[in-house]
């Protein structure tokens, strides 16, 4: 059985399960679906019985513009080698996604990590609220788009300060300073040299 047939096999399977919002074929070994949140558990359970027994990846993507968080599941079937991406969008203010550890046991730690970095809640996972990677974290979940690590780093960790002659080569003004000078010169010329 060649691999294009595998993609068609997935398509025919998905037709029976639910109606995806979006479908796109990435290449001959990968297909992506966007689903409604309610369909996720049904689809995962069905696909697991159909041979997609391995959960390769679970994570989230933050979309602050539309105020949504996208949860991503990637499944793998070794007998019919196709990766299936399943995505669903949930509310960003109160992100709740019921856990899938009853279907895929391996999701336990992925969910803990997604909670830690995106703040997604996974009811059903016994200890999703425990901190896994970070320790004593006191700010918003760090992978959210509005978190600025530079700002946090400047506030908490003092950097090294270099004296002036390290940062400027041969006492020449830096490129940025030159550019700034030129800009002010142009601006002043616009106003008649003042």
């Amino acid at each position, binding site marked *: 059985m060649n691999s294009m047939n595998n993609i068609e096999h997935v398509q025919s399977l998905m037709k029976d399960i639910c109606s995806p919002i979006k479908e796109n074929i990435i290449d001959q070994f990968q297909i992506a679906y966007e689903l409604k949140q309610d369909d996720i558990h049904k689809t995962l359970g069905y696909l697991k019985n159909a041979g997609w027994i391995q959960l390769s990846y679970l994570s989230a993507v933050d979309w602050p513009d539309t105020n949504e968080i996208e949860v991503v599941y990637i499944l793998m079937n070794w007998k019919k080698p196709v990766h299936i991406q399943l995505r669903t969008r949930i509310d960003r203010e109160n992100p709740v996604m019921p856990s899938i550890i009853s279907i895929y046991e391996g999701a336990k730690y992925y969910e803990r990590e997604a909670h830690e970095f995106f703040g997604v809640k996974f009811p059903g996972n016994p200890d999703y609220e425990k901190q896994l990677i970070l320790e004593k974290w006191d700010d918003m979940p760090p992978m959210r788009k509005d978190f600025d*690590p530079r700002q946090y*780093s400047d506030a908490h*960790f*003092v*950097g*090294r300060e270099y004296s002036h002659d390290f940062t400027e080569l041969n006492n020449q003004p830096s490129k940025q300073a030159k550019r700034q000078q030129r800009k002010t010169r142009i601006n002043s010329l616009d106003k008649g040299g003042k």
Partner: protein
Amino acid sequence: MKSTKFTELTQEQIDRKWWEIGDFFRRNSLWMLMYCTGCCAIELPPAMTSAYDMERLGMGPMATPRQADVLLVTGYLSLKTLRRLIYTYEQMSEPKYIVGFGSCTINGGIYHDSHVVINRLDRYVPVDVYVAGCMPNTEAVMNGFVDLMDLIKSKKADGWKRYHDNYDWYKKNQEEALGEVRIKDEFHE
């Protein structure tokens, strides 16, 4: 037969002489603590094993902090590691030296804007020798160890004394970054 004239030495001078003798032996048999904190540790196995053979410098790996002389901070330090590093450093018996590897220990390196990696190691623990590079290759690592030996000889590797003298300053910095130095987790309760 001429008699050798001994000048009376003060206790301080005698102590210093003993210390010099101690330093001679110390710098020729440095035990480094096997704590690989970051990615520069990957250049240690070639240095330790037959390719570069660190033991010809008299250096060898040691398993426990209490018997080790040198703490190698190999690369970036996240807050979680820094907590454990301070634990480890305070357990080591004096005199003790720290070698900082890679640009991450100097100024944060490629992770200078990360939300968990500290930028300057010498604010939290005293550093004797830096080995620059990302990552420093094995020759640079070996050269760093030779530099450390020279510094011990010329009595400039006095990081542990600085840690004593400025203990409050170091503690203040540690608490500023970490909140609390003590490890509190599920396991330690």
